Structure formats: structure tokens, C-alpha cells
């Protein structure tokens, strides 16, 4: 039997044991749902993944989109596969009933999407960007813009992009130079070049809705003068039908190491008379709006990192259970049968590392997804604000930790398969390549680390930081009372204490020392924080597992929960001690990298 795409028992654990997804039914928005509708949606996603995407996954990877100078060509199988997703309603599952959605809780939608992410390679990226685009417009655009552009996107007729990066302005958005000039009819004429625009051109939808960052004539320099525009590939006629070409020209395609099914484009806007753009919200507020989409996109990026880590883990686990090779060191008889490689302790180490990373990351992204729901639908205003505070603070970690450790897990998956992992007869090398993007897009790891320590930590008198610490303390207190977990409870307590003292010393360095030096090790800070958060989420999983084991569960469940406790132990014994290394670098404001001179390389 082929390897499972994902461990369904674990998905169930995450949804119903670690996070109380079933309890969401009590909220007004979700009152029509029950656990069965949740499971049916997941089954439907799985069916589409198996039927439409899994058979073309490798072809999507090996047949990159091509550009003949006029049009982009994708493999023909992708369009019907995406159409099947749209027809099923999964693309708009979380949207309001009025917009044709199903008001499905995001955490359930996220669980269902895991199958499509794994089976669809990045074919699904088109849908995800479209959803994020539609959500941004719903939050910040005028009713007219929403009516015109959001519904067709949710129906799958149009797709969306986010167009930020320019040839001379990537991570440093303040330097962007795309221009917008107000026209007499109130719309704008947008002109300039954008690069790395995912889904920037294709033949999968009738129209493409670009969300373009540009500077209105006369606006301030830097990030304060950036506005956001809807710039469609085609204008619409009064009756909503597709109208004139809007001067959004494809200048070329990029060829990527992974994620090949999703076009990465260079676009040229308005070379002749300017592309018609419609202002979203107010002028000069564009970056704020774009961050709305980016925050959501950052959770999606982290989710992709976590899901691909799980995919590689499941694949290599199945391989290790079935691949006979070698004998144990204790066995000297060459005539004895070979053992399956899972019998080798080092292979189990690599599988455990993957489990610790993949399931730790999955818990983190689902936690983030639940917070993004809580900030809108939690029963009280206070709870909603609290969820917002936590999510806003944790976003750099939710984005980064799975993006950094997901590829590490995939690297172990390749290693488990050995030479067979390095060739494309098995998907693990593809998972690795696809996953490698996640530490780069939607803000690199470096950018995220600066966002965390320089912005998020000090913000609002450290409100987000303190809320996070208090959440961890709650878990420490609970775990302390549980037999078998007290060791980990006190380990986490120590780690949180280290985090507190380190944070204090970094903040002090930022206000007393050269700021460039004080921030030189910001990634160490993000790494440290990420590890403490993952340790916390493992302890939460350990509490659920311990409590369940005490109830004398079925044999299968017993194995499952014991596996959770073993992965918890792995993370605490092998990974968490690294906190001490990062602490030293940070507390000493280590200047090794800072002092290095370009000439010395």
C-alpha cells in the first residue's frame, strides 16, 4: 500500500484533542456545523487530491510553465484539477454564506487543505493566493470593489495575486517606484515593473486581479507613501463581462528550483497609457492593507512548511518500514535475513526528528489559524482582542519556524531513503525543493527576526510578548502535576526564564549599544523563541497524550500517544538544549558576524 499522504490520526488529534475544533460549533457563525460536516469536507478534499492532483503531481514538477512570447502554457491537466476544487466549494469554504461560502472554521479548512497541498504540489498556490487577495479586499476595499472583484474570485472565475516586489525593491519595500496617477474619473493609471509575481499570468481563469503596491504622484518617499490598487489583467464591461486588455504585460517567467507549477512572473504595468487601477481604501495606507494579506499569507507559508514536512515524514516512514537493508550491529550472521531499515536506531532518530519538527510545526500553524479565527469569532470582545494580540505577536514565528525546520525534516526524509531519496522516483526531493521557498517569500527569516525583536516584542508595552509567556506558564503549571511530564514542565520553565532574561538583555543592548550591532544576532533570537514555542506546543500535546493514556485507550491509540510522548522527549533532550547556545550569543551581543569585513571573505 502506498504511503499515506498525511497521518490522519494525527490530523484528528490536532483538530479534536489538541484544539477543540468541535467546540467551535457553539459559536453563532458555525452553528450549522457539526463534526460530521467537518469530516465530510476533509473527505472531499482528500478525494479531490487523490483523483485530480496526485496523478499529475510529478508532471507539474517536471513540466514547468513555458512562455512563447505571447501566452503562458501550463500542463493541460492543471486547469480541470483547479476547476474541481472550485466546483467543490473548497476554495471559498471559510467565506460567508452570502458570498457563496460555507462558513467553515479556518482550522478545519486548513486541515482539509493539507491533502491538496501535498497532492497538488503548488498547483494549489493559485487558489490560496486568490483567497488571501479576496480576504484583503473584503477587509479594506469599498463595497463597489468587493462586489466587482471578490465574488468572481471566490467562484474561481478570477484569480488573484499580490504584486509588491520590483527589480530594485524586494525586502526593502520603501524603495518601490511603481507610479500611480489619478485620472479624471477617480481611478488611477498605474505604471511600472514588478517581479516574482506568483500566478502573475496563466490561462487558469478568465481574469487575474492584481493587488499592486504603487506610489501616487507626489506621495512621500519611503513606506509612508505607498498605496494599494486593484489592477485587473482585463477591465470589465458594465455588465461584468470581460472587456479591454489593461496593459498588464508579461515580460517573462522565472525558473524556480521548486514550486514549479506556479508561475513566477515579471510583469510590466501600463507601458503605453497606464494600466487602470482602483484605489483600495485610502491613499498612502497601502502597506498597512497589504500587511493584512501578508499576515494571512505568512500563516499560509508556515502551514505549507509544516504540511510538506509531514508529507516527507509519512513517505519516509512508510519506506523505512518496508525497505530491507543491512543487519543490526549485534548480528554477525550474513545469512540471516536483512532487517527493514526502521530497525536501525539511526533511521529511527531521523524519523523522530521529522516527527518532532513536522508535528510541532503543524501544532503551531493550526494554533495560529485558530487565533486568526478567534480574533474574529471568539465569544467576547476581550477574547477577540487577546487572540489578536497573540497572533500579531506570534506571526513571525508561525511563518518562520515551520519554514526553517520543515525543509530540515524533508532533508531527513531524503536521508532515510538514501540514494533513492535523491532521485525523482520518490517525491521527497520535490518536497524539499518546494519547501525551500518558505523561508524566503512573504518576508525572509532575517526580516521576520527583525520584525520580532525590534517591533513585536517592545510593541504596546510588550503586550504580545507577555501574553505569550503567560500562555506558556499556564501549560507549565498543568504539566507539573502530571506524572512523567514534570521533567519537561521544569525544562520549559527554565527555557522560558532564559527567554525572559535574554529578551531583557537584548532590549537593553538595543537602547544602549550600536543598534546595528544589537540587532546583528536577531535570527538567533527568533530561533530561540521558536524553539521555546515549539517546546511549549509539544508539552501541550504531551498533556493530551498523558491524559488519554491514563484512560486505558485502544491498543492503536496507546501506540499513537506513546509516539507523541517519545517525540516530546526527543524535542526536549535533543533540540531544546540549543537555547543555551543562542542565549550566549545574544546575551554577550556577540559581534562575530557584525565585525566581519567584506574584504576578509
Amino acid at each position: 500500500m502506498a504511503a499515506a499522504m498525511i497521518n490522519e490520526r494525527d490530523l484528528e488529534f490536532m483538530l479534536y484533542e489538541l484544539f477543540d475544533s468541535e467546540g467551535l460549533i457553539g459559536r453563532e457563525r458555525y452553528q450549522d456545523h457539526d463534526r460530521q460536516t467537518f469530516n465530510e469536507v476533509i473527505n472531499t478534499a482528500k478525494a479531490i487530491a487523490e483523483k485530480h492532483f496526485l496523478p499529475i503531481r510529478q508532471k507539474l514538477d517536471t513540466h514547468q510553465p513555458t512562455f512563447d512570447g505571447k501566452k503562458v502554457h501550463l500542463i493541460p491537466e492543471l486547469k480541470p484539477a483547479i476547476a474541481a476544487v472550485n466546483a467543490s466549494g473548497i476554495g471559498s469554504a471559510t467565506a460567508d454564506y452570502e458570498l457563496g461560502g460555507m462558513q467553515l472554521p479556518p482550522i478545519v479548512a486548513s486541515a482539509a487543505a493539507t491533502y491538496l497541498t501535498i497532492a497538488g504540489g503548488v498547483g494549489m498556490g493559485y487558489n490560496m493566493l486568490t483567497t488571501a487577495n479576496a480576504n484583503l479586499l473584503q477587509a479594506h476595499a469599498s463595497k463597489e470593489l468587493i462586489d466587482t472583484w471578490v465574488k468572481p474570485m471566490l467562484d474561481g472565475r478570477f484569480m488573484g495575486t499580490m504584486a509588491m516586489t520590483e527589480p530594485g525593491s524586494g525586502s526593502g519595500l520603501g524603495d518601490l517606484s511603481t507610479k500611480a496617477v489619478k485620472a479624471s474619473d477617480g481611478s488611477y493609471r498605474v505604471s511600472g515593473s514588478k517581479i516574482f509575481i506568483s500566478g502573475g499570468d496563466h490561462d487558469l481563469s478568465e481574469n487575474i486581479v492584481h493587488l499592486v503596491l504603487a506610489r501616487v504622484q507626489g506621495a512621500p518617499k519611503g513606506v509612508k507613501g505607498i498605496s494599494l490598487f486593484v489592477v485587473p489583467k482585463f477591465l470589465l464591461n458594465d455588465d461584468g463581462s470581460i472587456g479591454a486588455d489593461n496593459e498588464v504585460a508579461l515580460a517573462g517567467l522565472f525558473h524556480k528550483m521548486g514550486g514549479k507549477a506556479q508561475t513566477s512572473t515579471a510583469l510590466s504595468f501600463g507601458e503605453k497609457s497606464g494600466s487602470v487601477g482602483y484605489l483600495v481604501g485610502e491613499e498612502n495606507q497601502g502597506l498597512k492593507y497589504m500587511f493584512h494579506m501578508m499576515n494571512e499569507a505568512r500563516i499560509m507559508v508556515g502551514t505549507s512548511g509544516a504540511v510538506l514536512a509531514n508529507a516527507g515524514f509519512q513517505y519516509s516512514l512508510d519506506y523505512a518500514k518496508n525497505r530491507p537493508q543491512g543487519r543490526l550491529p549485534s548480528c554477525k550472521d550474513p545469512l540471516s535475513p536483512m532487517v527493514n531499515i526502521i530497525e536501525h536506531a539511526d533511521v529511527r532518530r531521523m524519523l523522530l526528528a521529522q516527527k518532532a519538527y513536522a508535528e510541532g510545526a503543524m501544532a503551531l500553524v493550526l494554533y495560529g489559524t485558530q487565533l486568526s479565527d478567534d480574533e474574529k469569532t471568539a465569544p467576547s470582545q476581550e477574547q477577540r482582542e487577546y487572540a489578536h494580540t497573540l497572533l500579531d505577536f506570534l506571526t513571525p514565528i508561525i511563518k518562520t519556524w515551520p519554514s526553517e525546520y520543515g525543509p530540515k525534516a524533508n532533508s531527513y526524509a531524503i536521508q532515510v531513503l538514501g540514494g533513492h531519496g535523491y532521485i525523482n522516483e520518490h517525491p521527497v526531493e520535490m518536497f524539499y525543493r518546494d519547501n525551500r521557498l518558505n523561508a524566503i517569500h512573504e518576508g525572509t527569516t532575517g526580516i521576520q527576526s527583525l520584525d520580532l525583536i525590534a517591533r513585536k516584542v517592545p510593541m504596546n508595552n510588550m503586550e504580545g510578548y507577555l501574553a505569550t509567556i503567560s500562555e506558556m506558564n499556564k501549560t507549565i503549571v498543568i504539566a507539573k502535576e502530571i506524572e512523567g511530564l514534570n521533567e519537561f514542565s521544569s525544562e520549559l520553565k527554565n527555557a522560558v526564564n532564559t527567554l525572559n532574561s535574554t529578551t531583557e538583555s537584548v532590549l537593553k543592548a538595543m537602547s544602549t549599544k550600536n543598534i546595528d550591532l544589537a540587532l546583528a544576532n536577531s535570527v538567533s533570537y527568533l530561533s530561540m523563541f521558536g524553539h521555546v514555542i515549539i517546546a511549549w506546543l509539544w508539552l501541550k500535546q504531551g498533556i493530551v497524550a498523558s491524559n488519554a493514556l491514563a484512560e486505558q485507550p485502544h491498543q492503536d491509540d496507546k501506540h499513537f500517544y506513546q509516539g507523541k510522548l517519545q517525540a516530546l522527549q526527543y524535542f526536549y533532550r535533543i533540540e531544546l538544549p540549543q537555547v543555551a547556545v543562542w542565549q550566549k550569543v545574544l546575551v554577550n551581543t556577540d559581534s562575530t558576524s557584525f565585525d566581519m569585513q567584506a574584504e576578509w571573505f
Partner: protein
Amino acid sequence: MKVLVPIKRVIDYNVKVRVKADNSNVDLANVKMAINPFCEIAVEEAVRLKEAGTATEVIAVSIGDKSCQEQLRTALALGADRAIQIDTDQNLDSLHVAKLLQKVVEEEQPQLVILGKQSIDSDNNQTGQMLAALTGMAQGTFASAVNVDGEKVNVTREVDGGLQTVALNLPAIVTTDLRLNEPRYASLPNIMKAKRKPLAVKPAADFGLDLTARTTLLKVTPPAERQAGIVVESIDELVEKLKNEAKVIS
């Protein structure tokens, strides 16, 4: 035309079936359950008949405890119009199932009853045939094509020598084979609509039938596990083992 589709809740076909330690039965604790694949094909066929305008109403019926409502909901999400659960926590023989279904047929008067040819758990392949005998309706089993033509239904059957097409007078019973169709998956809007479709619960005891078990399950044993091989020293030893141990040559 009304179409009745009896469905069964069974262990999911993806699940590796285990036997209880005391060999008393299959271990169903904690196992993923699903609609029997042949029943799913039956639902699909009925829904297609409705979409084609041939059928006017599709009724799904299942016999079991409350948990089988899950499978009925699935059938509703796939396109059935309403559902009936015949409530019982007893394990029923095929004959009991057929007798209960006979009562439903009497009450609902469907023109067509489409069942799976067998369930993947007990593999009896009896219910459809028994129901045909009890109701006196014509039967077309192992269908790979179903075409309603006026007062008749043409059923193409998968038989040992190939295909056989029979014309049955309506009302009739059809049991589905694997190749009849490829069932759809439920779209999200239909999953939500299914929640509002009627699902009637009727206690099995109300049907006035003697449901005493006619068969007793003595024991269940798993297939023998494949033993590890050994390396023999010589051809002679191999021949000797094939002759005397495996007894495959003489």
C-alpha cells in the same frame, strides 16, 4: 419514479482489518467507518437517474444504531433527497435486513431499488436477491449499466462469460457492480444542504418482525501471517524441503 437505495455502514476500505484477541469478531473499536463502496455506487446511480430526470425522488435507508446516520448524511450530501434509519443495535442476518427492507418497499412503493451487490465486511451477496424474492420484484444483479426505458429497465450484468443484458419490468431490484459508475464526492454546499434534508428514525421493533438471529458467529481468525524465509545450503536441501515440507513436488 421513486428510487430506494439501502446502504450499509462498514469498515472503511482503506483500513487494515484486525481480529479481536479472543477471536470473537473483527475489532471495530476506534476504526474509521464509511459507506460500503458498492452502496456508494448505488447512491451515485440513483442520483444520476434523478439528474437525468428519470427519477423524481431518491430515498436512502440504512439499518443500524444511531451511528449509521453518518452514512445516511453522506448519501444525502451526495444527492439523496431524504433518509430513513431503521434503528436497532442488533447484528442482523441478510434475511432480516431483506425483510425489513421489504416493509420499507411496501410503504414507499419505489419503482426501483438499487443496492450494492454485497458489503465489503460480511461479503454475503444475499440481500438484493432475498429482497427480490420477498417482494416478487424482478432482479438484475451485478449491474455495470442501468437504463430505464419506459416501464422497463435494461440492466447489463457482469457475468462469468462477459456481459449479459436483461430487460426487467418495473418495479425492479438492481444490485451494483464495481464498474457501474465512479461515485462523486460531496461538494461543500451539498454537505451543508444535507443537514437540512429529512432523516426519519424508525425503531426496528415497530416493524413486527421476528429478528432473532438465525446464525451464530463462532470465531474469526486472521489469515496466516507470511513466515520469514530461510536460505538453504544446497539444491539438494531445497528439493528435499519442497518434497517433504512444502509437499509441492513429489
